[in-house]
């Protein structure tokens, strides 16, 4: 039974990873692409790792996959933040349909 649930988690994770990559291709500029890749790929990968944990139980690889989930959740947003800040500092403009850019107004 737990193997079937684990399989379901792995399939959900793969679907979200697919949407993340689709977003990386379809969305117009750096910031929107980062949104898609951070959110979908984080949850997708965590879901795959959790499915692996359900398969393996409390064994060596199962515990390592849980640790992997914790470290992905802690580090993925930080790297996205660093990439977005770096892109904005080096002068990458927002895409054409953008509504407002308060950051550029404040920092000159």
């Amino acid at each position, binding site marked *: 039974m737990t193997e079937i649930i684990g399989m379901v988690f792995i399939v959900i994770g793969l679907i*979200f990873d697919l*949407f*993340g990559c*689709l*977003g990386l291709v*379809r*969305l*117009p*500029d750096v*910031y*929107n692409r*980062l*949104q*898609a890749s*951070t*959110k*979908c790929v*984080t*949850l*997708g990968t965590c879901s795959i790792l959790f499915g692996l944990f359900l398969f393996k139980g*409390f*064994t*060596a690889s199962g*515990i*390592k996959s*849980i*640790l992997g989930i914790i470290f992905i*959740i*802690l580090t*993925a*947003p*930080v790297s*996205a*933040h660093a990439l*977005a*800040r770096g892109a*904005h500092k080096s002068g990458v403009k*927002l*895409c054409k*349909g*953008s*509504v*407002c*850019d*308060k*950051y*550029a107004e*404040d920092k000159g």
Partner: protein
Amino acid sequence: MKKSRIILFILALLIWMFLSWPPDYQHLIIGILVAGFVSFMTGDMFVKRAHLFKHLSRYLWFLYYIPLFIWECMKANIDVAYRVAHPDLPINPGIVKVKTTLKSDTGLTFLANSITLTPGTMTVDIDPEHGFLYIHWIDVKDKDMQKATQIIVQRFERVLKRIFE
């Protein structure tokens, strides 16, 4: 300073024991030696206000925060997947400015990370002196600072304040 070292020692040892699961005698000895050395060398800058670790209510609020965070994260993913898969690409992006009342470094970090992983928003920069966050929003509903703060920040802020402040 001493408490900070002890906290780092316990955390490092726990993570080491999970990495070398299943637990045994040899790994435990190596773990105690290395974690002791690391916490002796760098432990004094790990936490600044060690007395906060004694409050039980903070752990309970953290337990409440985990399901809240997972629920918001699920909503974020379905939202982004819908926008990406829609043929017309319904996005309306922009960078807005919001204000937070959190002051501590840990609280600000958790707030920024939570905002990044929740529906349609991503932190671009933080101004800790004035408490401003610059947020890239994939679907801007309001350019005004007060309204944007209400929509984005407040659902996490009230919980995070009880954990980290």
